């Protein structure tokens, strides 16, 4: 049973470019959340997707957008990249039950130069 998978594992982009990160949730999970983790910090909530809709959003600008597909996989898009967007981007999945822990992927390390 595969856990949460993310691709790519590493990515280097230039300021102003756009990037798309991908996530496949754990089997049986239909809710996907995205987190940004800067070096030495805890993960910061970006947004959550359920039934192909953004259900909740953290304090991130509109440059950050996402999508969820009918098979529950998800994408995170970031436009007009800034140096400060350099971070580890983590995808987490969960069933719709409220008291369930999140299952995290190993993340995508994004470096913006």
């Amino acid at each position, binding site marked *: 049973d595969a856990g949460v998978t993310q691709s790519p594992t590493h990515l280097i982009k230039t300021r102003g470019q756009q990037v798309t990160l991908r996530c496949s949730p754990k089997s049986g999970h239909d809710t996907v959340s995205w987190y940004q983790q800067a070096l030495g910090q805890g993960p910061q*909530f970006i947004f959550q997707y359920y039934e192909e809709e953004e259900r909740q959003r953290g304090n991130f600008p509109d440059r950050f957008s996402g999508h969820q597909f009918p098979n529950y996989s998800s994408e995170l898009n970031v436009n007009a990249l800034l140096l400060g967007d350099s971070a*580890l981007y983590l995808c987490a999945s969960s069933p719709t039950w409220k*008291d369930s822990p999140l299952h995290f992927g190993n993340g995508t390390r994004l470096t913006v130069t």
Partner: protein
Amino acid sequence: SQQGEEDPQALSIQEGENATMNCSYKTSINNLQWYRQNSGRGLVHLILIRSNEREKHSGRLRVTLDTSKKSSSLLITASRAADTASYFCATVLISGAGSYQLTFGKGTKLSVIP
């Protein structure tokens, strides 16, 4: 913004000793969770404690929750070198719309010396 604050920021102990990490938070919660992260990889869930629970055990882990003080502690007994990692507490507030968001602290970096 980060709701949980872990204390200490870093902790170094000898193998076999116990490690205690604390977490304080600001608002009411539905549950609190502890996660472990090994050197920049994904987070691994350790334990979940609900707001109506005071203590929970899982193997060598013991978690307490004091909602009146808005604080929690994670105790790892008989530590091993493999316990070396960053530990995060995450608070959960379930919104009326049914959304389920974890808010993480900055973590405690634990080093267990063999």
